[in-house]
């Protein structure tokens, strides 16, 4: 369908890198978000303060600034660390750095999403689980989490779309993702416009496809809820 002038392979590889990066980022920020939300809702003042500082700073600073800040500084800190322990220098590749920084950034957004969702689940649910003799972790896994997901899904869907689009930034710190591949192809063939459009189409396909998946998930987690028939 498209004439890719032999650049089809790199573009496909770049697309796969973009997808991998998004999914790993999602996993990291999902876990950080759960941790952050638990900290914000915990009784410990220190945990609350740490989580609040985390979400406030991360959400107030642009992701690209944080990415460059963490990407360059992380390597310097790693070098200091390896020097201090007389180890061989360990080089951080852009992929790992991208996952760590994006995960760290979007963990703050997930924290806010999960905090709101946890608060939406009635307090009695967890109390009932505890009264039946469930341990806190089991109660969280069986009772709180499935109900919380119902409220969190719209926010999660939004965050996922933002993460997917934010991976485009990682080519700025040198990752060979779909943007890098299409830009290289454009420079090689002098058809920058055409190949930039291809990058746009790839992203459009990814966001549309994930929308379909998210719609399915929404239906799955809405099992057992009743809507007013209009």
């Amino acid at each position, binding site marked *: 369908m498209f004439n890719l002038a032999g650049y089809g392979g790199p573009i496909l590889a770049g697309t796969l890198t973009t997808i991998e990066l998004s999914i790993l980022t999602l996993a990291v920020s999902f876990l950080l978000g759960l941790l952050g939300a638990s900290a914000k809702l915990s009784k410990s003042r220190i945990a609350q303060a740490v989580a609040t500082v985390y979400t406030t*700073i991360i959400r107030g*600073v642009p992701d690209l600034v944080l990415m*460059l800040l963490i990407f360059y500084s992380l390597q310097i800190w790693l070098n200091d660390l390896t020097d201090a322990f007389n180890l061989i220098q360990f080089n951080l590749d852009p992929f790992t750095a991208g996952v760590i920084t994006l995960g760290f950034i979007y963990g703050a957004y997930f924290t806010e999403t999960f905090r709101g969702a946890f608060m939406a689940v009635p307090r009695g649910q967890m109390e009932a689980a505890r009264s039946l003799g469930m341990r806190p972790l089991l109660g969280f896994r069986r009772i709180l989490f499935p109900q919380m997901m119902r409220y969190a899904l719209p926010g999660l869907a939004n965050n996922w779309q933002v993460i997917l689009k934010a991976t485009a930034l990682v080519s700025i710190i040198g990752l060979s993702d779909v943007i890098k591949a299409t830009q290289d192809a454009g420079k090689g063939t002098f058809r920058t416009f055409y190949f930039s459009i291809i990058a746009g189409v790839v992203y459009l396909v990814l966001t549309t496809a994930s929308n379909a998946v998210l719609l399915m998930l929404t239906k799955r987690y809405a099992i057992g809820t009743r809507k007013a028939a209009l």
Partner: protein
Amino acid sequence: MIDIIQTYWRAFLYSDGYTMTGVAMTLWLLVASLAIGFCIALPLAIARNSRNPAIWGPVWVYVFIFTGTPLYVQLLIIYTGVYSLSIVQHTHFLNEFFRKGIDCTILAFGLNTGAYTTAIFAGAIRDTNFGEVEAARAIGMSVVTLYRRIIIPGALRRALPVYSNEVILMLHSTTLAFTATVPDILKIANDANSATYESFSAFGVAALLYLCISFTLIFMFRRAERHFLAFLRP
């Protein structure tokens, strides 16, 4: 950190001696793109709620494309892509426009935030209470008056909390301008980083500046919400 601030404070705040840079440039990018986006969004949001598919269809496509792709890709298409077309290079006006990084940046940012703002405003217009519209019709308002006096003021008020989020996100997006060689805060920080190799301090100063701008904007929107949404207070 102190020496970076001492060397670069002027560039970080308003000028490097030749052009507008740093905070001034970032704020200019923000205001210009938001103004363009607002002017695009208001008519398109009304068109989006039309019952005629020939009117709302194109608006849907515009919003779908610009919210479904990353802003960085849009900037690349407009900045490096469009300029590579021979028709652009051989038309005097287009050549002059697309050669400058700042023009392309503001165009891309304006179109991008215009799409998100269209979605926000269209939702707010759709949520207009039917009673308000019926009452306006009952006292004989024309369609234009109905929109000017009833629908648009109400929709803009309801959209304010979501729109403030979009403004903060747009502030964050202006950092992409440095990839098009526009000297905003991040470009200065990047220059400071390349000159001194003190990455944490260079980007840290930029992060603090952005944090201050974010907080100021959030504070201003809180005040605006308290003023314009006063009737919703419990």
